[in-house]
């Protein structure tokens, strides 16, 4: 074999494990889900093999699914905005701090060492009727009766922000860390105030990181089902909860497959739009 031919094959050999994993663990199950979405659930809960459009017709025309999808996108959007507002200053502080950057980044990663479910459930002990916050407010005499703070949309958003904030901070940090601080100094030497140099120099240059963090927060937030299950009230379900219910509670795998593909297409479209205008390179930097 010639050297050229060997060099041409080398990338494929190196990529083979990753491609195999993606094919076996993502593409093949996805094909199964696509096939399942055209089957039907029988009265006993068994699947009826065939090519039926009933699930797709129901998923696309029923107002119930559309409403929950919009509600899910709204909750994900609010979460993303809150994460951006809270995450940007934190990322800026870390990027501009001298010496203790590594420790701050380590602290940022610390919550990932604890299970996401445990972190979500911890809010019950903080916001519950006999939780830490109510106990504190009552002990200092601010309130006489405990407040009902749990099991509503606000606590769902709170739980999502808690989960997603590090993703935002990391992406913005990567972006800010790559900006040459001499640019800010140059702006200041040309008469710009600190605020002006931030608004006109730093912020525009860090927008790709903000967008990458926003995309990650939005996609992960829109696909979650644990947070509304643990911290939501009876009406606070998100779209992934419908998939869970169809597959687990109703044993209707075909409908659940159609619903999960619907969510995948919506979120996939957002990723495509992001890729079209900003490219995936920034996202990869943030994830790396």
């Amino acid at each position, binding site marked *: 074999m010639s050297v050229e031919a060997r060099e041409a094959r080398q990338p494929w050999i190196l990529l083979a494990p990753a491609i195999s994993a993606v094919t076996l663990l993502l593409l093949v199950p996805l094909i199964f889900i696509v096939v399942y979405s055209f089957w039907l*659930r029988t*009265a*006993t*809960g*068994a699947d009826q093999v065939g090519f039926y459009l009933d699930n797709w017709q129901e998923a696309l025309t029923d107002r*119930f699914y559309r409403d*929950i999808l919009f509600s899910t996108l709204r909750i994900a959007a609010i979460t993303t905005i809150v994460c951006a507002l809270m995450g940007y200053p934190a990322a800026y502080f870390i990027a501009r701090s001298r010496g203790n950057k590594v420790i701050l980044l380590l602290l940022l990663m610390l919550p990932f060492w604890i299970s996401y479910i445990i972190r979500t459930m911890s809010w*019950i002990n903080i916001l*519950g*009727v*006999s*939780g830490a916050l109510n106990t504190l407010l009552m002990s200092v005499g601010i309130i006489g009766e405990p407040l*009902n703070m*749990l*099991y509503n949309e606000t606590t769902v958003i709170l739980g999502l922000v808690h989960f997603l904030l590090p993703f935002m901070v990391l992406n913005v940090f990567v972006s800010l860390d790559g900006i040459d601080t001499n640019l800010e100094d140059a702006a200041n030497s040309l008469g710009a105030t600190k605020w002006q140099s931030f608004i006109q120099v730093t912020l525009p240059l860090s927008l790709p990181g903000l967008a990458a963090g926003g995309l990650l927060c939005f996609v992960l937030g829109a696909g979650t089902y644990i947070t509304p*299950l643990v911290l939501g*009230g*009876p*009406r606070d*379900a998100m779209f992934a909860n*419908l998939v869970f*219910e*169809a*597959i*687990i*509670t*109703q*044993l*209707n*795998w075909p409908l659940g497959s159609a619903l999960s593909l619907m969510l995948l297409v919506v979120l996939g479209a957002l990723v495509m739009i992001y890729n079209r205008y900003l490219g995936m390179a920034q996202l990869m930097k943030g994830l790396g």
Partner: protein
Amino acid sequence: MTRKIDDTTRYERLRERYMNGDLDRRSFLGLFGAAGAAYGLVTPYRAFAQSVSQVRFDGWGGVVSEALRANAFDPFTAKTGIEVVDGTFGGGDEYISRVKASQPGEYNIAHLSGVFDYARYHGLGLTTKLNEERIPNLQYVIPKLVDVFRDITDGSLSCVPYDYGTTGLAYNRKYISDEEMQEKGAKILIDEAHKGKIGGWSDWRTRMWYASLQTGQDPNGVTDEEACWDAVRAHRDLALKYWGSGAELMSLLAEEEIHVTEGWSGRIYALQEQGHDIGYMDPPNGFGWQECMFVIKGSPLEACEELLNFMLDPATSIAVAEGQSYPPALDPQKVDLGEKIPTLPAFDPTGTLSGLTFADPDYWNGHEAAWSKTFGRVQKGY
């Protein structure tokens, strides 16, 4: 004499031949791939061939699993050498989905609730036929509990009844008196006076059962379905939270997040034993259920039968019942159940269980597809 070699040795020899140049790369990778494919294809059927060293059991977790582990599984392993690996589930619907996705033999014994679940497994072709001669302790079980299962599987059994209980009304006595409970009964769950302090299980059967009681209908024969859904909606609008597990039920009541809910008799008894002033009441036509130890098709039958017989041994069964706070399926007319069990909620000293109303499996499974779907919508505000 021939020597058996293991797979690692085989791989090392193959690799050595390849490294020495005795085997070209294509052949090496081909043989390696074929070995992997063969392993993958054979794995699902290993359960049929392997000697039984362990049995998998899945149950409700919490105090129930602890009682089974301490009083049944550990002593069984000590006696037979067969290890019992136990997993948990939050509800029967979740578990049936996992079993449906599994390979034969992956799941063995499940602590199922209700005859309707047994009928669903039968409908999906997941029942097997137990050899009752290998389960002599079945003679001590209340006959009524056994017969309902036989009716579904044409006289044979794929399970043994194990315990029973009720889903009654649990209330915090600090906020709700016994008199108020007696007066309002099931309707307390749709009482505006307790808005924001009401809970409920996120199980469509329980919701519809209690809606039947709230609208004055027979839970096993609703005639005005829409009235029931209106009651479910009324409950939803007043409820703080639908709970999804026994642990969550206990936490919500103990932390006083909710003051009233329907609850599982054993879990409420456990709360009372912990010192919480929680009352428990079975309203007329309250939800009675029986649980069984169900053997799933494809399981190692002899080991499962041996375990079931061990679990039904009166000494084991009574110890488990005392631990999980649900009365055992043992007939009090045949077995002395000791002092604690007669004090457990839902206990029937006659062994006839005539005071409990059970779900009619045909009726409930007939409505399962439609009602579970409708409840999913009603739950979310529709």
